[in-house]
């Protein structure tokens, strides 16, 4: 299959996720970049455009001081959890326009332990919001899934099954952080963080880096062993009426989420429907996010998740394997890296190189979705 302006991922590289004392985020990014270049068999000098970002670990473009001062145009992006998706959007646009032939995209991060502590002033809200105790991403996800469970009949058991699957897949992924399988009972019985979500239903801020090499046109066949075509990448911010993180109020009138709109745009641009997807990576900041994003992306109907997840359809051997690398739950959340980790995993799955966690059925179409504060989403459709 080819198309989408003929842009393909021709190389991938990753620095293991987790905790890595003594190595900076920037260094992890450079390591991932070198691995991606080695995966293609090209040098840094062969890259004619780069984009990248981190949320908390420095300016991506300063990695040229590690990789080499080649004069390459390098654009920094910073878009919360959608940072990787934004970097990919930028590189994709440069390649489609013909302004570049071979592009590198890199995302990395390094966060301190514990929950994020964003400042309301940086999000356009008064300090009263933080002092009152409302400036927490975990609250948002809990409030959103609590309402969703009541409206769509989702059980606590289903939330636990999402996390159990993540750790099961993470155990098979050498680059994951959490590699110990946990039972549904252990997950439900763990410390409550924000009702209805327990400790093991949330991902933790962590560290890691991912890089991708993309190429266009005739360069694809020259460079790639197995080209994985980037059929579309779509990025959206929120509309009036969508329920997003850090909202002191939400309108009574509701609207599709940024994810819903980004996913629909990605599928339309690719000319591929959600029903054609063989394997997907979707934002699982916590168990409920995977449940809700499954329907927001169009991969199932609202309310259908209960039966889908209980039946095992989203496990490695199921009809629609989701977050085959363990997702954010098992890999942790280095904000700048997560979106590209999803693409990295889809590339491995479509190439048939995912090792112990390779999906057993034939996979030709992959999908990714990242979501971040304060209501941004980026989705991709990839094919072989």
């Amino acid at each position, binding site marked *: 299959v080819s198309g989408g302006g003929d842009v393909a991922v021709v190389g991938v590289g990753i620095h293991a996720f987790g905790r890595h004392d003594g190595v900076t985020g920037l260094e992890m990014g450079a390591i991932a970049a070198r691995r991606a270049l080695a995966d293609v068999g090209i040098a840094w000098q062969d890259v004619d455009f780069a984009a990248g970002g981190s949320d908390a670990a420095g300016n991506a473009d300063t990695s040229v001081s590690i990789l080499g001062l080649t004069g390459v145009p390098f654009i920094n992006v910073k878009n919360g959890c959608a940072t990787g998706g934004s970097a990919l959007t930028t590189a994709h646009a440069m390649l489609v326009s013909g302004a570049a032939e071979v592009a590198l995209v890199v995302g990395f991060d390094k966060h301190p332990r*514990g*929950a994020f*502590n*964003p*400042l*309301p002033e940086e999000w356009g809200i*008064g*300090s*009263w*919001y*933080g*002092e*009152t*105790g*409302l*400036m*927490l991403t*975990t*609250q948002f996800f*809990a*409030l*959103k899934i*609590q*309402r969703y469970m*009541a409206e769509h009949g989702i059980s606590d058991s289903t939330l636990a099954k999402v996390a159990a699957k993540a750790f099961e897949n993470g155990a098979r992924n050498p680059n994951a952080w959490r590699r110990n399988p946990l039972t549904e009972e252990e997950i439900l019985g763990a*410390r*409550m*963080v*924000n*009702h*209805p979500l327990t400790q093991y239903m949330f991902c933790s801020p962590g560290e890691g880096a991912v890089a991708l090499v993309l190429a266009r046109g005739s360069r694809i066949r020259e460079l790639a062993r197995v080209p994985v075509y980037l059929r579309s990448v779509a990025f959206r911010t929120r509309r*009036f*009426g969508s329920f997003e993180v850090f*909202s*002191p*109020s*939400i*309108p*009574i*009138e509701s609207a599709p989420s940024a994810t819903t709109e980004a996913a629909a745009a990605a599928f339309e641009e690719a000319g591929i429907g959600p029903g054609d997807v063989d394997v997907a990576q979707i934002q699982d900041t916590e168990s409920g996010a995977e449940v809700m994003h499954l329907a927001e992306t169009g991969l199932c109907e609202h309310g259908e998740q209960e039966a889908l997840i209980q039946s095992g359809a989203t496990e490695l051997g199921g009809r629609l394997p989701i977050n085959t690398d363990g997702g954010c739950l098992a890999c942790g959340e280095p904000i700048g890296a997560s979106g590209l980790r999803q693409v990295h995993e889809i590339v491995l799955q479509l190439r048939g190189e995912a090792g112990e966690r390779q999906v057993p059925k034939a996979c030709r179409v992959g999908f990714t979705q990242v979501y971040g504060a304060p209501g941004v989403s980026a989705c991709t459709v990839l094919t072989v």
Partner: protein
Amino acid sequence: MTETHTPQLIDPDVIGGSPEEPRLIGSVCARCGTVTFPRQRSCPRCTSEDVQARELATRGELWSWTIQCFAPKAPPYLPGGVEEFEPYGVGYIELPGEVRVEARLTESEPDRLRIGMLMDLTLIPVPGAPDKLTFAFRPACQEDE
């Protein structure tokens, strides 16, 4: 001479009225009628800049809830709030015909919270700053319902 302590509202742009009868201050768009909280200078729905301040309803229905079971980090929480931390409820309260407002709840027992229950506006001390008051919602008394 007696010293009187008048508690300060956490942000007079957000909470108006008096400490006895507080009101949340939102805004309403003169063009499309959209209500926002807190007050905004332009309408997020239709982009009009013709918006006016509006005191919001003080009673609404609980639209969703959670319990905050771990202490938020300071900042943005106050260090004293971290020290005295006890789990607290958080929810969105749908003010009829206006907007859903996010707030702390005076109730932190999951079994006493259910979607759809009536809630009233009240004030609570800011955690870690007892001389300041912030807003919260409490379950409406049964005789009020």
